[in-house]
């Protein structure tokens, strides 16, 4: 949409929302949130940007095709799922946890990576879908 006001705000909101989405992702294990909602929020940030500034602008910001986030996310999730099979010989999806607490994140473990994978996939698919649709209108 050709609106100065929307353009400006969307540029402000983009980093804000992306930051927020990471926040939601990281805290999911303790409080409502997680990779899925986080991913949605991040996607929404870019979608908003695209609404305001046009698709091409947003793509410039993204640099890579959002579709690529899908296999990357899947790979992260899959690796974190099969990591226990390789590392400790335990079944798929067994949680691996780093013993000590890490500031901000709390306990860090394979579940977190898994959630991050989910995050990327969700961002990737939402953007792919929405961008594709707006391009082919």
């Amino acid at each position, binding site marked *: 949409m050709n609106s100065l006001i929307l353009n400006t705000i969307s540029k402000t909101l983009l980093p804000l929302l992306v930051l927020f989405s990471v926040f939601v992702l990281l805290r999911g294990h303790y409080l409502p949130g997680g990779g899925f909602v986080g991913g949605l929020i991040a996607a929404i940030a870019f979608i908003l940007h695209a609404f305001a500034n046009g698709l091409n602008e947003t793509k410039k910001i993204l640099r890579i095709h959002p*579709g*690529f986030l*899908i*296999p990357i996310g*899947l*790979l992260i999730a*899959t690796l974190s799922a*099969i990591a*226990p*099979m390789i590392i400790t*010989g*335990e*079944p*798929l*999806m*067994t*949680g691996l946890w780093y013993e000590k607490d890490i500031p901000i994140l709390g306990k860090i473990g394979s579940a977190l990576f898994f959630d991050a994978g989910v995050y990327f996939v969700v961002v990737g698919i939402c953007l792919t879908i929405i961008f594709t649709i707006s391009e082919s209108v």
Partner: protein
Amino acid sequence: MSEHLTIYPIIVHLLTAILLLLSWMNPKVQRYISIIGSIVGIIVGGLLFSQVWTEGIQSVQLGNWKAPFGITMVADTFAVTLIVLTNIVALAVSIISTRNMVSSRLKFGYYAIFHFLIMGLSGAFITGDLFSLYVWFEVIIISSFVLLTIGGRNIQIEGAVKYFTLNMLSSIIFLTGIAMVYGVTGSLNMAELSRIIPEIENQGLVHTISLIFFIGFGVKSGVFPLYFWLPASYHTPPAAVSALFAGLLTKVGIYAMIRVFTLIFPLGEINQMILMVVAGFTIFFGGIGALVQKDIQRIFSYLIICHIGFMVGGLSLFTEVAIVGAVMYMFHDIIVKATLFLIGGVMYRIFGSTRLYDMGGLMDNYPRLSFLFAIPMFALVGVPPLSGFWPKVSLFMASYTQGEMFLLIMFIFASLITLVIIAKIWNSTFSKKPVEREKRKAFKYFEKFSFAEKAAYIVPIIILVGVTLYYSFFAEHFQVISERIGKELMNTEHYYNAVFGIKEETKL
């Protein structure tokens, strides 16, 4: 390594799919990755099979949460046999896709989705969790939607709309059933459910829920009167995709039906009767549908339905012998139906059409191909000793021992009508004079194919025909496997013990 083998068939295809997505723009590499992935799939499936065969039912507790707290993956003989066959079909389709699918399709993720679909099928076969089964079903559905529609012509889109709506509906029905099961039992673990369900006091409710599952799976497996999406869509996509669908998709519905109605809701008299009637009608309507069609892919589509009746009928008899027959039939059907659709694809390349009217002269112009094609066609009919014959023996036996002459007669009807239809196809396609067409379609006909292209079309058929022949002449192997499956399915404690890690005193 070997203790995780159960999950490998899924991992292999998942990783293959991811790799394929990463090599998004490179169709050439994709072709190799896919074929290698499928071969690894067969190897892994084979290893898992031998493990199950020697050590009994295998299970993996995902996340290392003991059942029923996590998701349990269970590879029993039934599941693992299906996985092996699925991977074989996958290899065949993977090979034909190298040529049947144009590069632009590959750039839109054809192969990746194809492997997701195989992953979905494998997952559905080995999951031991009811909700997980739903999720696997969704993988299957969505990937089949995509395969059905990408690059879609009008008819394909139209077919997809129907396919989509009815399958979506069936998923909703299935999910409704799952919700109700959870509401009644508080559990989703299939092995645990097999113990809880009989204890439920309100068995009327349980029965109703079982029927919801039946309708949900019925749509997927294409039984009367729920099959409508199938003939509307299966003939529309390219041959490779149709072959995959024909061989495997409806079978998942049947698989689920067999699994659920042996493990969770063992068939009672009423359900047996319902299934039997449904089987009879499925045979009848599938058969007559196939009889009146004039397009080879459509005929095969209806024959899929018709032959679903064998499996549902077998299940409805609910004896070990009948289950053996149903399962045997399923194995045969997976291979042969896939082959037939691949053949349909070759015919399309030869004649530029899949309509019977446009065909002819195959036997005179391509005698060796004709011979090759004849094998699956007559195997479908059940011409002994080809594969379709063997399951019928068990099915006939079971119909007799259960005194269900109705079913026996329906089985005969199905066989006869298949025979007539195949003979009709033979006459129009192989025997009759080729139709003289003034204007030929502007596309590359089979005769213009390079050797590599021809090989890509024919090698998969040879592979599958090889399996058919193996099945035909070493039917004993399949029979023994199926008998073990029958035992495992009808005596659920084996499954239960495997899931809950209880050592069995006697092996099967």
